[in-house]
């Protein structure tokens, strides 16, 4: 193996303030009674800054600001709203290195991913929906579809800025105003985005950012003057939100958990499949709702594929997320690390065989080595529950019908992968997999033009593409 010299990205491009207030009505405002909480770099446990956990009164103020701005914003010609969004997209591009470094510091993901995946997709998402703002009458929702009003948006910690883009860009393009709550462990890029809104001269109150945890989110969900809730996160919280919204008339879209099958047939290009499996589960430390966390491999090639997969895993580099050579960064939080450990221990206890490459873990920070479980039964917790970490469960199958049966044997239905060189089999499989996204001979691809979202308990509604507009229009 090659030796690598450290190649850390400089963090000098980022200027993190010691503490942040709430972004309401276009300015930084003090919380009414909220407490300050540290946000840490999960790779070092170093405190990066302090943010306030917004109270019900703060949320009320933010919703009020959004309501006030809604009149002006929704009355703007679409072409003007478009230009604001284009501006935002451009500023994101201009400040993309800064945003990428900040994302990596606050989240723990490798700089290679925040720089090459997250940030380009964030800018592209704003560009894409900017272009829709003055073409909504052509989107198939009637000649003059109207916005919903104030959207309350709650996003997770795995792709903080990308999820913000998925939420804010279509909402604003359609003429809504928003109150967005970033995750409590990754608030910093959303707060920097607030600054970008100021730089873009976005009218005050169109975007409001309230930091906080579950209670802040609940205050937003239950606020009577919010017209729409968009949530990305766990299925458990999604259920609670669906329950609280019941009877309120609020519109709701949910993008929740997954337990995707990545299915490899014996005729697949195995080297490509191995890369796809690695990308499927170890991308972003497996903190991906659509991660290919169940590898279904055809029995006849199982041994060969696993050998190649293990060989590939020994070359993955785990460590400093800011190092440009790093493949696997830090687990986002101590709580998440505990959950991954617990499920992995359950995997062993239930009889599956655990394997990780020799992989020294840094002493400080939250880390988990890439891990494979073989001999996994469908009833095992690691085959049923979302681990949301770098843990792959391997199962085998003999026939395509068995592969479909096993792949669909989950309450989730977000994504699936198929690896085979036979075109008709790809389409046959794609027809039968009950999942919102099917990647054939590829995995974990995203694009603003491509609708994303789940079947069954992975939630409802789509983000991306023309379909993504529906969530923010009164149709």
């Amino acid at each position, binding site marked *: 193996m090659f030796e690598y010299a450290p190649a850390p990205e400089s963090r000098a491009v980022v200027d993190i303030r010691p503490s942040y207030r709430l972004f309401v009505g276009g300015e930084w405002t003090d919380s009414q009674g909220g407490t300050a909480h540290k946000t840490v770099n999960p790779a070092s446990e170093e405190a990066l800054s302090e943010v306030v956990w917004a109270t019900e009164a703060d949320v009320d103020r933010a919703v009020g600001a959004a309501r006030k701005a809604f009149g002006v914003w929704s009355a703007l010609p679409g072409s003007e709203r478009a230009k604001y969004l284009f501006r935002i997209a451009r500023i994101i591009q201009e400040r993309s290195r800064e945003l990428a470094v900040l994302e990596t510091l606050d989240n723990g993901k490798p700089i290679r991913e925040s720089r090459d995946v997250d940030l380009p997709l964030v800018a592209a998402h704003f560009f894409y929906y900017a272009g829709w703002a003055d073409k909504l009458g052509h989107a198939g929702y009637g000649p003059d579809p109207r916005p919903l009003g104030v959207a309350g948006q709650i996003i997770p910690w795995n792709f903080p800025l990308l999820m913000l883009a998925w939420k804010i860009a279509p909402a604003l393009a359609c003429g809504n105003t928003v109150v967005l709550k970033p995750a409590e462990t990754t608030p910093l890029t959303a707060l920097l985005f607030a600054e970008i809104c100021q730089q873009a001269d976005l009218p005050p109150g169109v975007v409001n950012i309230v930091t906080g945890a579950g209670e802040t989110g609940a205050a937003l969900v239950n606020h009577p003057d919010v017209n729409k809730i968009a949530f990305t996160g766990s299925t458990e919280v999604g259920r609670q939100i669906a*329950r609280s919204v*019941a009877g309120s008339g609020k519109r709701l879209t949910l993008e929740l958990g997954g337990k995707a099958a990545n299915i490899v047939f014996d005729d697949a290009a195995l080297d490509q499949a191995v890369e796809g499996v690695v990308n499927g589960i170890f991308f972003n430390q497996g903190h991906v709702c659509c991660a290919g966390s169940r590898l279904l491999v055809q029995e006849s090639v199982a041994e060969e594929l696993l050998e190649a997969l293990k060989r590939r895993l020994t070359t993955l580099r785990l460590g400093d997320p800011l190092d440009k050579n790093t493949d696997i960064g830090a687990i986002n939080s101590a709580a998440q690390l505990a959950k991954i450990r617990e499920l992995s221990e359950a995997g062993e206890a239930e009889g599956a065989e655990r394997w990780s490459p020799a992989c020294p873990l840094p002493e400080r920070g939250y880390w988990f080595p890439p891990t494979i479980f073989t001999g996994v039964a469908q009833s095992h917790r690691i085959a049923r529950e979302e681990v949301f970490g770098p843990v792959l469960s391997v199962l085998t199958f003999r026939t395509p019908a068995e592969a479909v049966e096993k792949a669909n044997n989950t309450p989730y239905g977000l994504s699936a992968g198929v690896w085979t060189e036979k075109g008709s089999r790809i389409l046959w499989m794609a027809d039968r997999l009950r999942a919102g996204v*099917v*990647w054939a001979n590829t995995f974990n*691809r995203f*694009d603003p*033009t491509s*609708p994303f979202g789940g079947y069954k308990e*992975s939630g409802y509604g789509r983000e991306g593409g023309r379909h993504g507009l529906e969530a923010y229009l009164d149709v």
Partner: protein
Amino acid sequence: MSKTDPVRLAVRKTYKLYIGGAFPRSESGRSYPVTSSKGDFLANAAKASRKDARDAVSAARRAFPGWSGATPYNRGQILYRVAEMLEGRRAQFVAELVDAGTGRAEAGRNVDAAVDRLVWYAGWSDKITSIVGAANPVAGPYFNLSTPEPTGVVAVVAPEDPLLGLVSVVAPVIVTGNTCVVVAGERAPLPAVTLAEVLATSDLPGGVVNILTGSTAEIAPWLASHMDVNAIDLTGVTDAELAVACEEAAAENLKRVLRPTGGTDWSADPGTRRMTTFLETKTVWHPTGV
């Protein structure tokens, strides 16, 4: 030697449930009297139980792979066939609607509208994909296509509009490949049972539509909380508290919910919303290359 009665006694129909293509009584043995708008006794309708609802859900689940896997052309043909069969029983439906309190002329218009609605939806079977699907121009060397797929098993609480309202909520659910369990309007359920006879003779596979009669307030919550039901249409729930309770119960497995809007005009252009609510979008990616 007995004399022949000059007035022949009519042979009445037993109104039963429609589950999995068969017409069982309620397993509970319960029934409830259905009366005309004037209060005259019409029939004892089956009063479906929780077990009947569960049986209906299993029947709908069993029918789902076949029905959703049928070609859209085939589904369209079958819906058109339903319209034909309904037209053939026009007089019977008019009589039943009159019994339920609709004026004779209005009843005729209702049946005509129900037939026309079926014809309209039949034509959607092979067009909805073109309207709501998309070829997505992603920024990379990938083929990327989004297509609608049926959500699965849909529970439908039908409105108290015994024929046109019923047809207007069932047709959009099944035309795209879903299967359903329908709770017929409680007050006038008899046309629903007769519609089941129409469905049973229209080449519609058993289990695609299952019809329960009985108490809406009793059955709807069981369906709303059933973990093998993927979506619920609450159109026929007029009690606001019941609607909220059903929506809350539906959250347990993230059912897609069509909320009641109240006062739907069943003669108006229905649009595509009733179809799209029960469709999922599947997006398939594949690299391009040589």
